[in-house]
């Protein structure tokens, strides 16, 4: 027990560069595996929370764009969704990494609106920014599919009632369509969140290098599997951590879902349940 306390001090925050520099090499204990893989989970949570947090708003914009009356907006947003839903996330990571590394060198700059990538923005080749950007686009595309479906199933009567009471177009969206959309989309969106967290494990296996061996949970698990030639300990540990993480996500989304459904009679609420899975 005492020994394990030392290990937690040494490796508890190893994934973000705090603590012992060298990873355990010989005589690897169960405690070391648990602690180091757990510390890698910081990155999974980081990628998951931030990409969902930002991707949510982009997804709402995208789904509005897909239902827009302007053909250009429709085309651009459906094209974006097709690009990110139709290709494997794994390839997207590789492609984006090469683009972030290569394009600035050749003098081509990518204008992302908020940031312009050129030689000075080398941090986009680092996982914390580059992979986050890919995950952000990816989850936005998948979520916008869910949201635009939900927007189309907002009850017509409610919109008519809002129009009849003299609301402006923006007010109708803000007060009627948006809350209804969230409520209807929430169970499917929970599923999307779970699978996004799962796919954060791909980051360090796809082009983006783990700087100073600071990687995610699966990165450390495969490190241990390589060092000990025993996959039966590290991978079940990752699996266990992810099952816990999944339970936390389900808990958070169920609570939020209850809040979103607060004005709806009990029997008409949208129940959270597992839907078809999605893979990037």
């Amino acid at each position: 027990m005492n020994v394990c306390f030392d290990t937690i001090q040494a490796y508890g925050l190893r994934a973000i560069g705090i603590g012992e520099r060298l990873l355990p090499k010989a005589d690897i204990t169960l405690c070391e595996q648990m602690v180091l893989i757990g510390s890698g989970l910081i990155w999974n949570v980081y990628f998951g929370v931030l990409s969902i947090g930002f991707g949510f708003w982009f997804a709402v914009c995208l789904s509005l764009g897909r239902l827009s009356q302007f053909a250009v907006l429709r085309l651009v947003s459906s094209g974006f969704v097709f690009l990110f839903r139709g290709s494997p996330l794994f390839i997207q990571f590789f492609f984006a990494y090469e683009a972030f590394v290569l394009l600035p060198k050749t003098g081509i700059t990518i204008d992302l609106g908020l940031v312009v990538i050129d030689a000075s923005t080398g941090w986009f080749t680092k996982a914390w920014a580059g992979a986050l950007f890919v995950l952000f686009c990816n989850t936005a595309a998948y979520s916008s599919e869910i949201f635009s479906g939900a927007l189309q199933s907002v009850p017509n009567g409610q919109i008519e009632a809002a129009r009849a009471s003299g609301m402006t177009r923006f007010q109708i969206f803000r007060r009627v369509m948006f809350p209804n959309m969230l409520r209807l989309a929430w169970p499917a969106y929970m599923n999307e969140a779970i699978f996004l967290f799962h796919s954060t494990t791909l980051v360090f296996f796809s082009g983006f290098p783990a700087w100073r061996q600071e990687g995610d949970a699966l990165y450390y698990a495969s490190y241990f599997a390589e060092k000990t030639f025993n996959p039966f300990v590290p991978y079940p540990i990752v699996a266990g951590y992810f099952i816990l993480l999944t339970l936390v996500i389900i808990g958070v989304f169920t609570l939020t879902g209850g809040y979103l459904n607060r004005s709806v009679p009990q029997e008409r609420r949208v129940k959270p349940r597992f839907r078809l899975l999605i893979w990037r």
Partner: protein
Amino acid sequence: MFSVCADPSLLSGLDWFSCYLTTPKHLAFFGSFGLVMLLIAVVAPVALAIGFAAAVASRSASPLLSLPGRGYIALARGVPDIVFFLFVPIALDQGFEYLRYLVICPDQPDGVWQGNNFLVCSAAKLPLSTAAPIWHSIYGFGLAVISFGLVFGAFAGNVLAGSFEAVPIAQIQTGASFGMTQSHIFRRILVPQMWVFALPGLSNLWQILIKATPLLFLLGLQDIVYWARELGSSKTSIYAYPHPDWRLYYFGFLLIFYLGLTAISEVAYKRIMARLSRGQATLAGSGKIGLRGGV
């Protein structure tokens, strides 16, 4: 390949490219697209069969069958799939070698676990180190098929178990009232009607399977990702065809390949759905409402 390609340094423009794209390594790259297609073609029926067995087992009245079925289906939901893809091949590989060790050289001096190493005598290695390289590739591909089959079998089991539930109960009751036996009802009523409910989920799975194929790279096979990295990386002038870092274009090509594959599957799915819905007790099958409005 062509006689003009004998001395690449003399070539330029289109000639250079046509020679560059037909080097043996590029032909292997194009061949690896076939490998991906082969994997999809082999895994899809395997996973469907495993999933069907798991779904049927999970509905069984006996807990001896239903518990393993449910557990197997549920496990794939909570754990990232890539964990399975890393875990299952190593575990299977070690399992096979351990079994061979028990048969071939059980009296190995230090046992299989030597410190932090897993070692079996060289006669028990799989495939044998003397085997031709093709056997190593086939063995690796076989492991990939098994791990893809196991993971996607669980997903398919999940979909099929749901669609068994979706068959209207009245259909089963009608069968029972005609005096059909359990297995009769299962074969004549449940299974034929289940597919139309399963198809949206299965088509989703198909897309997932297509998009999971780059993970072959993680299993150490020479698949399209391997070749794209290999061929795209910058080649200095000691190579026959020197070029700067072209990985971006190679990965761009892979991106387009996958987009095409998923787009074609989408069209095919709509056709099959329309065909299967004919005559079914669903809105789409009644012929009054089109597919889009009905489902």
